[in-house]
């Protein structure tokens, strides 16, 4: 359990949120032209990183807005939070 700093509501317990998995997976621009292999990559294959992961969260029991989080998955320490559409931090 950890605290997430919602960019709209401030610090709340993680149990108020729902994780949305890996962030920045871009939906294919022309789905009809994708091969089965490319579909599998888009739909199922994940980095599943042990370390710094960029991921999506939604504040389900709060503002119900989606946003992005940078978290170290080896110890659950959150490094940064940023809104949808903003550029991910590079430091």
């Amino acid at each position: 359990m950890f605290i997430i700093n919602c960019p709209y509501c401030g610090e709340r317990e993680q149990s108020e949120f729902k994780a949305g998995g890996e962030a920045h997976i871009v939906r294919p621009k022309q789905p009809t032209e994708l091969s089965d292999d490319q579909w599998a990559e888009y739909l199922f294959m994940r980095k599943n990183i042990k370390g710094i992961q960029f991921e999506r969260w939604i504040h389900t029991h709060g503002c119900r807005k989606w946003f992005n989080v940078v978290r170290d998955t080896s110890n659950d320490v959150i490094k940064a939070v940023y809104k949808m559409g903003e550029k991910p931090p590079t430091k």
Partner: protein
Amino acid sequence: MRNKYSLFSLVKNAFSYHENWEKAWKDPEPKKEYDAVIVGGGGHGLATAYYLAKKHNMKNIAVVEKGWIGGGNTGRNTTIIRSNYLWDASAGLYDHALKIWENLSQELNYNVMFSQRGVMNLAHNLQDVRDLKRRTHANRLNGIDAVYLNTEQVKKFCPIINTSPDIRYPVLGGTLQRRAGTARHDAVAWGYARGADEMGVDIIQNCEVKGIKRNGDSVEGIETTKGFIKTKKIGVVAAGHSSVIANMAGLRLPLESKPLQALVSEPVKPIIDTVVMSNAVHAYVSQSDKGELVIGAGTDDYVSYSQKGSHDVVEGTLNAILELYPIFSRMRMLRQWGGIVDICPDASPIISKTSIKGLYFNCGWGTGGFKATPGSGDLFAHTIANDEPHKLNAAFNLNRFVSGDLVDEHGAAAVAH
């Protein structure tokens, strides 16, 4: 030939205060080269090595384990064994394992304490009733024992369950697989380790894999904390860390690693002589031979390798346990822990070749791998030895995520994720 464990050996060693038992397995340094290396010394990995040596005559092999054998998810699960899965492919896979369990102690000359005390799955709403009835029929068509019980029959089979219609999620019925049950999880790892070691398998502990060396499209060996080990075949059975190993070889897998929690209570006298699982309210409980209640909680919904889960997940499970078993209301919990489980999108495992020659993965068991340990090892050994899957694990290939031929077992997996 190693000394056989028997009543005679027990008496003989009693005379020397049990101080002279021979080591169950050696502690060797790695050789320069092996015919195959298994990455991961849990139950599945050790079983794989055991069957590679026993059935496929591959004796020059090693198991490398970053910690100690059986110290990962093998020692963290709730030890439930059953085979009541919905689809034909899963029924074949899990019942193959269950059949091996039935003779495993004799085969290994090691008491894995397999106890066929039955597993009951409860229904709490009309959809549960329909799903469980459907699964009962599917199981019976596949030759797996299953019966559907109404509320009175559930109460008769496990009298401490609160079957009052007034609780928040009343018990409307359940299924029972009598051949199902539990086993001693450490013993499974130790028994397979002892058996594999006896046939010449090197079990190398405290040896972490740091890299996979490739030559084009085939593997050449592994970099470890104990140096480079040359091999043409690598079988990865790393559970929650499968993606970490896959990334070393430049592969991505359809997995997400999440914490799954369990907890045990203080030991008490025998109170529940079966395993009861409840998917809808997420509570499952059995009693260990030491008398502790063994309670399984759910997974957290975020990726984490931290081996600790959220408190609210445990709280939710205990709320459900108390509603279903009011008699446990004053029990104290002794220990709580988390393990990292590798979850596949279809809640079915992967026992498969990969696009890299000589690299094999056995992963994606998610929240329910323990029950399959012997079958998983047997089929993975077959896949590695022949470079082809056995017909029982053919459906569990990596390519199913490309073809779309998924084996959706979210209903039978019984742990919400």
